[in-house]
């Protein structure tokens, strides 16, 4: 244990070394090798993390901090790794799901001219994300926070020759910038209040003695904006659907399983500050519930297989925000984990479908794929049931626990509970819709297309993730609160009423917990049944009627409620106008001043130009005249 603890830095260093090695040497390696190097780097990091996780999980070891080196001692910024229950769990998710997606990418990126560069970025992303979650220090966390943003940008616009991909990367970067700005202002506020950026000296050591409720609210809101940027929450969620321009493994790794959960992690990690504020947590919960609902409504009308999953991700992230906003931190982290499994699986499955359909992403041109792609079909079915929240798949337990912890707060939260329940219905509905459109019905393929099952590189990760999606829920059933007890040391100081008595009490109230679970399960079943009826079991006439009746709302949903257009008119266009105004100020006044000075000098030069006649003798005459003038001058003055 002690031996391992000193080598925890390898978890970050290995993927980083992989990225550096591939950056310089990758192009000399033949095709599968760069991928294997990257898999080796992150896989070893996973093994180290798993080995170091075991003593934490069994309770043999306690959370500890590994100091790597001092960075800016004056502001308490250092590179130090915090290995506690929460960061260990995050590390396992990042490296575990990351390893599977790395393996999958070897198959998915086969034949790409920038094969090794792709793995450079993937490894760099893994190192950045691990820096973020392992940081015991806001400064180090911010470094990771910015680096994952950079990697997201690089990978979204990986196929940068497509203008849409380049634009999507830029959009993600700019929108994230807004959140990052709020985050860094929040960090400054933390520093002015505590005089340090080290987490063990700030948020994790009685912040209530330093922060007033007002300051805590300010910091919490700033952190929330930062988290909303990274985790694609209202109003900053618009970049995530566009981010689907990136290769599908990127969507699975960054924009579903890991990076976008950084905001949830940030709030869970700083829960102590959020708890000090009377309003921060309800705001977080409201943002989460609103995002969950709006994104689910949009997902219902999407026809691009990846867009459905993108909005579904936004919606599920909203769920996690709803959970942490209801002080259900464990529920939030639990859903983060199960979501990482089943959403990564959904994306990878979608990638397998896209691959098998020769880059076709429109679900209207799919259908009937269950026989052509049996493994992809089976694993996607597991993931669909998991995200819909069907017992006993993972999503059922995590979603149920979120809804239970929202319900447990009572009062205003009951409204949010209703929103969450309705979102659960929508989730089941649109996921079933997608599943049916892709795998059932008659083939609607483009002519001459022969779909094929993907290679083992891709299907094996799918199967592993399917097992996790099916079974991970049992980590935290209401009877066996394994994860709850495991994470207890991280959250025990918070909201003691909730952890020690309230939730177990409510959940323990025979019937109520069971009733809530039945309700959420029932809602999911209704959602699946509705979609199943509408898209598979109904008559052609009913389908016609349904399509006509829902034309307007479906159109609004398909166009994502025109939010992008609205942002374009209200923010982007005025921003461009302002930039143009500033540019004309620059070209008129700033450049004008410089050019004006140059013009004056030039005009003086032009007027003096005739003096240089080019005739040597006229110079001589001037010279002589000057001398004579001087002589006369001195003579009239009467000597020198």
């Amino acid at each position, binding site marked *: 244990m002690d031996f391992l603890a000193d080598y925890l830095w390898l978890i970050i260093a290995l993927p980083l070394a992989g990225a550096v090695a591939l950056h310089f040497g990758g192009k000399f390696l033949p095709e599968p090798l760069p991928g294997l190097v990257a898999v080796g780097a992150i896989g070893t990091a996973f093994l180290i993390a798993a080995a170091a996780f075991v003593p934490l999980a069994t309770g043999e070891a306690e959370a500890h901090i590994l100091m790597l080196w001092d960075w800016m001692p004056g502001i308490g910024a250092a590179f130090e790794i915090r290995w506690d229950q929460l960061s260990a769990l995050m590390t396992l998710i990042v490296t575990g799901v990351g390893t599977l997606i790395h393996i999958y990418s070897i198959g998915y990126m086969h034949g790409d001219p920038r094969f090794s560069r792709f793995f450079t970025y993937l490894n760099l992303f893994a190192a950045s994300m691990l820096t973020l979650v392992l940081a015991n220090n806001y400064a180090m966390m911010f470094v990771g926070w910015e680096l994952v943003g950079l990697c997201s940008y690089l990978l979204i616009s990986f196929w940068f020759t497509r203008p849409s991909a380049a634009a999507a990367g830029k959009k993600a970067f700019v929108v994230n910038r807004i959140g990052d700005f709020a985050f860094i202002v929040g960090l400054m506020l933390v520093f002015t209040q505590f005089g340090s950026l080290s987490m063990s000296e700030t948020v994790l050591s009685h912040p209530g003695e330093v922060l007033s409720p007002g300051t805590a609210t300010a910091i919490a809101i700033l952190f929330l904006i930062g988290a909303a940027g990274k985790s694609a929450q209202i109003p900053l969620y618009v970049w995530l659907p566009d981010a689907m321009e990136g290769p599908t493994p990127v969507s699975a790794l960054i924009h579903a399983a890991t990076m976008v959960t950084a905001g949830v992690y940030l709030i869970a990690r700083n829960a102590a500050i959020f708890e000090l504020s009377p309003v921060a947590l309800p705001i977080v919960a409201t943002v989460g519930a609103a995002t969950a609902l709006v994104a689910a409504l949009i997902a219902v009308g999407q026809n691009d297989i990846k867009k459905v999953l993108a909005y579904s991700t936004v919606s599920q992230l909203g769920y996690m925000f709803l959970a942490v906003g209801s002080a259900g931190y464990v529920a939030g982290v639990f859903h983060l984990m199960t979501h990482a499994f089943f959403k990564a699986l959904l994306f990878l499955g979608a990638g397998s479908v896209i691959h098998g359909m020769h880059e076709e992403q429109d679900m209207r041109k799919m259908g009937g794929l269950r026989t052509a792609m049996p493994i992809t079909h089976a694993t996607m079915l597991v993931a669909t049931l998991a995200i819909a929240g069907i017992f006993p798949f993972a999503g059922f337990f995590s979603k149920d626990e979120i809804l239970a912890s929202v319900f447990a707060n009572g009062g205003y939260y009951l409204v949010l509970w209703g929103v969450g329940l309705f979102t659960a219905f929508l989730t089941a509905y649109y996921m079933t819709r997608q599943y049916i459109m892709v795998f059932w019905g008659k083939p609607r393929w483009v002519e001459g297309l022969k779909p094929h099952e993907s290679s083992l590189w891709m299907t094996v990760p799918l199967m592993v993730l399917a097992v996790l999606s099916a079974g991970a829920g049992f980590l935290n059933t209401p009877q066996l609160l394994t994860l709850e007890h495991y994470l207890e040391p991280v959250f025990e100081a918070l909201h003691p009423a909730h952890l020690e008595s309230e939730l177990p009490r409510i959940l323990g109230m025979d019937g109520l917990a069971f009733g809530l679970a039945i309700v959420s399960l029932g809602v999911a079943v209704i959602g699946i049944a509705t979609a199943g009826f509408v898209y598979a079991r109904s008559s052609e006439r009913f389908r016609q009627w349904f399509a006509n009746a829902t034309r307007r709302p479906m159109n609004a949903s398909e166009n994502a409620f025109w939010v992008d257009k609205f942002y374009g008119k209200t923010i982007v266009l005025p921003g461009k106008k302002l930039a143009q105004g500033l540019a004309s100020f620059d070209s008129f006044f700033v450049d004008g001043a410089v050019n004006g000075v140059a013009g004056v000098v030039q005009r003086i030069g032009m007027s*003096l*130009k*005739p*003096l*240089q*006649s*080019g*005739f*040597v*003798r006229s110079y*001589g*005459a001037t010279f*002589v005249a000057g001398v004579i003038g001087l002589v006369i001058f001195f003579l009239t003055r009467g000597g020198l």
Partner: protein
Amino acid sequence: MAGPTPYMALAFILFVIGATGLLTRRNALIMFMSVELMLNSVNLTFVAAGRAIGNFTGQVSVFFVLVVAAAEVVIGLAIIVAVFQKRNSASVDELSEMKG
């Protein structure tokens, strides 16, 4: 023994001849000779004045002028030869490329 006046008069005449030549001739070589003439007329005033005052300062000054003039001759002649080789003429009026 006469005073410095005749020498001064001679120097003045030489200086005027030199200045006139400088201003009226357009052959660079002749202009150059005119400059030399003017320099030597000034040398003559130095020597004459030194003699009249009774010290060697004037004569020492002449040596300096001669040395500077020698250097000037070297460079000046080199330029003139180069110009002549290039355009087969030493007329200064044609050398007006640099006019503004």
